[in-house]
């Protein structure tokens, strides 16, 4: 019988600890427990039997560490260990005459990119190996457990779903405050896992029953799924160098009774629990009737760390990472200058956006490549949920796959082919989709017709198993200058979708004012109209004061902002940062010398009124930067001050370049292209980033390849972009080898390219010994060397 069919019919019991039982049977410290499936099969099977005899319904195969990353025994492939382990669990079940054998999957022990060095797809494959072997060996279900990283958990769930049809249960390890070590919380975990379609959500390890009890109410509040709890037998106690757990079987069982009575359907034990604990548990809880599940029907999105609900309290979606009408962003995308996107993300978050739109589509770029590059970087600088905005379905799937969380998907519409393409992706990866009320006949003129399309979208989604709360409807803002009634139909349609269909709504506001002067004013007024009709999310420019004023005022006036706290914070923020005025009398040169970014931008703006842009660069900015460089080299300025001056110069350059562009010209050409990379194996990139900031502000275009960069990538980029100078950084002695290899490869494929190196362990002699052309002893040194190369 499939375990899914038994869920809820009675309380189901999982087994207890495997590791501690194996240690008791003689497993030595440092030895892989999985190896015992082959060397001590009877001992492993005996443990399974003990748990089954204690009343457990599910035993977990002894495969916690048997994934392609963690289990690295050259003599024994993962598949062999998993097959053996699965066979032992199955035999125990057969002998006991009851129960199911679960394939147990634990974490890889590695951190995924971008924070660590494990590639997402490599993680999927690492988990796919035990899944395939376990399914072939007859597993009844898969339990993914003790996961502290939602991204890794997503990789494991995808591996399970893509390689078998077994039920998938997923369980996480939280700390006492309900936080994952990687920063997630319970709502973020629920949003992700329900989107991925797991069958059961659980908590295990880390905590004893008492601490887990404190987290259960929040888990129940958020999830619609059956809950599995497998606490430790208390918190670990360390005495005399040994770790032990001190909650007795009776106390353990007593706490578990409370769990079962408050709605938990599946119970078991983790570290420190024994067959005695499980026997006490089953005896105490066997006759408790499971409470019915309560569907939560939330419309929401998430990142790895936070969730955003589309409900009565409206939220802002930042629209600035979208190239339509933005020449500077288009340039950044063409040059793969992701830092520009990242800065836009951080700024929008600071301005109060709750979700960020991400659209990198341009006719001349590979959208799939760019989107999959941009998303992980964006997620390493912002914890806001992202809106994946693309009409390229290949790019959409690639993005949904690597996104860490439950994304907002932009968009699906009433055309059959749109729904046929988007809904399967939503079903597989999870997400909430913006549904446009248009179809093959275009955008209907009346609210009635837009509602009819919305109904059709809801019905079609249901056929894919997607509930209506996973859709938010965009009733499409039309240009009021072209069609006088346009701005009336849109709010009417969204009001009716909210009240008649019970769905969330979302609107890109800016279209309405197209072709009109002072568009911002019209947009803000339209925002108020639509908020009044119950709009759940507005896609706006969060850097527009007019929009923010309208938004925060609306929330305060609508009793959505207790004590007007957010409104006041917004108003205070504006007062604190007026259009940065230069400190009185400060000229641009002084602002750069003193490293004051705000003043430098304002001073540049003031200076441009009297001085032509190019003259301002050559007569003021360049001499100021020269002075700063010399002051650093002579010890008058410290590194932070050098960087502050470089950043002040950047603020000034931005103003000057805008002026040049608005006058129909272009920004001055860079002095040259320089590749920077932290070498293979090294993940410490602060030195490289310092050099980058300096080179950029001294006039160079930097191609930043990031950290942990293979020699081949450096070499290929140098050849493709015809680069004459490469800067490499390495922190540790062990990674200088990667540096040497990169230099060797560059010499072969790009002999005219110079290489400068830097990093904590390097010296001039060491640099020469590995064949570098230049040793950068400090931050300015790279600028000076570049100036020699690009005279």
């Amino acid at each position, binding site marked *: 019988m499939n375990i899914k069919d038994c869920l809820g019919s009675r309380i189901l019991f999982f087994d207890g600890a495997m590791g501690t039982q194996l240690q008791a049977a003689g497993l030595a410290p440092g030895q892989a427990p999985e190896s015992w499936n082959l060397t001590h099969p009877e001992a492993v099977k005996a443990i399974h039997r003990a748990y089954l005899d204690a009343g457990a319904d599910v035993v977990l195969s002894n495969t916690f560490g048997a994934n392609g990353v963690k289990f690295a025994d050259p003599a024994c492939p993962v598949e062999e260990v998993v097959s053996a382990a699965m066979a032992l669990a199955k035999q125990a079940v057969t002998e006991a005459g009851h129960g199911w054998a679960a394939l147990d999957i634990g974490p890889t022990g590695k951190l995924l990119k971008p924070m660590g060095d494990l590639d997402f797809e490599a993680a999927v494959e690492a988990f796919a190996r035990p899944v395939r072997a376990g399914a072939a060996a007859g597993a009844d279900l898969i339990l993914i457990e003790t996961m502290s990283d939602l991204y890794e958990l997503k990789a494991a769930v995808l591996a399970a779903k893509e390689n078998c049809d077994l039920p998938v249960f997923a369980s996480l390890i939280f700390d006492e405050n309900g936080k994952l*070590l990687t920063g997630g919380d319970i709502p973020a975990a629920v949003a992700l896992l329900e989107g991925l379609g797991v069958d059961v959500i659980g908590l295990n390890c880390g905590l004893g029953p008492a601490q887990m009890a404190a987290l259960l109410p929040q888990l129940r509040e958020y999830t619609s799924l059956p809950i599995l709890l497998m606490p430790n037998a208390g918190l670990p106690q360390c005495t005399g160098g040994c770790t032990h757990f001190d909650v007795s079987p009776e106390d353990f069982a007593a706490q578990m009774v409370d769990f079962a009575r408050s709605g938990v359907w599946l119970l078991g034990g983790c570290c420190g629990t024994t067959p005695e604990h499980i026997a006490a548990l089953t005896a105490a809880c066997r006759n408790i009737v499971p409470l019915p599940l309560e569907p939560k029907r939330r419309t929401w999105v998430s990142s790895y760390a936070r969730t955003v609900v589309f409900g009565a309290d409206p939220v802002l979606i930042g629209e600035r990472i979208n190239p339509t009408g933005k020449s500077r962003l288009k340039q950044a995308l063409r040059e793969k200058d992701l830092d520009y996107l990242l800065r836009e993300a951080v700024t929008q978050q600071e301005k109060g956006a709750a979700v960020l739109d991400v659209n990198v589509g341009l006719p001349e770029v590979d959208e799939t490549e760019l989107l999959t590059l941009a998303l992980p970087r964006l997620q390493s600088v912002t914890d806001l949920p992202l809106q994946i905005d693309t009409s390229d379905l290949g790019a959409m799937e690639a993005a949904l796959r690597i996104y860490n969380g439950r994304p907002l998907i932009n968009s699906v519409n009433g055309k059959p082919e749109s729904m046929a393409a988007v809904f399967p992706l939503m079903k597989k990866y999870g997400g909430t989709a913006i549904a446009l009320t248009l179809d093959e006949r275009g955008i209907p003129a009346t609210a009635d017709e837009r509602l009819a399309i919305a109904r059709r979208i809801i019905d079609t989604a249901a056929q894919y198993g997607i509930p209506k709360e996973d859709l938010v409807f965009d009733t499409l803002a039309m240009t009021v200058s072209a069609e006088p009634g346009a701005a009336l139909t849109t709010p009417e349609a969204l009001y009716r979708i909210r009240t008649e269909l019970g769905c969330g709504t979302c609107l890109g506001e800016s279209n309405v004012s197209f072709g009109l002067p002072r568009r911002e004013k019209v947009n803000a007024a339209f925002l108020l109209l639509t908020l009044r009709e119950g709009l759940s999310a507005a896609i706006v420019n969060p850097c527009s004061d007019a929009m923010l004023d309208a938004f925060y005022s609306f929330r305060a006036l609508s009793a959505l902002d207790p004590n007007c706290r957010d409104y006041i914070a917004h108003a205070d923020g504006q007062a604190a940062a007026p259009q940065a005025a230069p400190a009185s009398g400060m000229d641009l040169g002084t602002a750069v010398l003193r490293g004051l970014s705000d003043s430098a931008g304002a001073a540049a703006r003031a200076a441009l009124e009297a001085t032509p842009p190019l003259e301002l660069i050559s007569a003021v900015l360049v001499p100021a930067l020269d002075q700063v460089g010399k002051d650093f080299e002579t010890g008058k300025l410290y590194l932070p001050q050098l960087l*502050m001056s470089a950043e002040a110069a950047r603020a000034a350059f931005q103003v000057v370049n805008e002026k040049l562009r608005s006058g129909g010209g272009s920004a001055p050409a860079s002095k040259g292209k320089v590749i920077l990379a932290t070498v293979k194996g090294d993940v410490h990139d602060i030195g490289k980033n310092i050099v980058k900031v300096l080179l950029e502000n001294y006039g160079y275009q930097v191609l930043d390849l990031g950290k942990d960069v293979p020699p081949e990538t450096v070499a290929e980029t140098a050849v493709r972009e015809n680069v004459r100078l490469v800067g490499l950084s390495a922190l540790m002695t062990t990674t200088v080898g990667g540096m040497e290899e990169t230099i060797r490869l560059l010499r072969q494929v790009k002999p005219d390219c110079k290489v400068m190196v830097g990093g904590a362990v390097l010296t001039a002699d060491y640099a020469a010994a590995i064949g570098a052309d230049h040793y950068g002893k400090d931050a300015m040194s790279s600028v000076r060397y570049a100036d020699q190369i690009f005279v």
Partner: protein
Amino acid sequence: MAGIDWSEARRYLGLKGEVPELEDKLRRAGELLLSAAAPKGVWRRFPLQRREGALCFAGMEVTSARLRAHLAGCGEVYLLAATLGIGTDRLLERLAVTDMSLAVMVQACAAALLESWCDEYQDRIAADVAGEGLFLRPRFSPGYGDFPLDTQPALLGALEAGKRIGLTATGANMLSPTKSVTAVIGLSPDRGSCHAGGCATCDKKDCEFRREG
């Protein structure tokens, strides 16, 4: 609870004492760090054996003359792993694109904070063993001298550091999150045999951050 040792943070930045123009920003860097960091530590005690030139503890066999000398007279060791958590890495990642000078200051504060926490954990361990008449040797980390960096995975494994404090090693045995430390601490009945640790045990004599004396 450990905090940021400001004079250490200034030293990591290469500052010779307080620089008035930088103090406000340094203070802000410290505040940002303290709100992003989630310091965690884990330690366990293991017997130490010496076998044919190798040191054996926690199921590991380590060949390192420097560590061997460092642990002279010790019959047991504590393994320690400490981290400021992934939030610190994310903060640094963000500042690297928005405000590099602030990033550099947070980096320095993080190094100082991590050191303070390691001292704090070591104090707790010292208090635990004081009753047994045992004293701690200074921390000695993989990568110091000839103590191989490739012992990182086994060391982390012995402490279950991945599960308990979220600390992992990359393929090249760098710690991730980056603001982290692993160390071996010898347990000795002899208070006087503890020699100076830290910079004095390091071979990089020309390091600009080297502490004298």
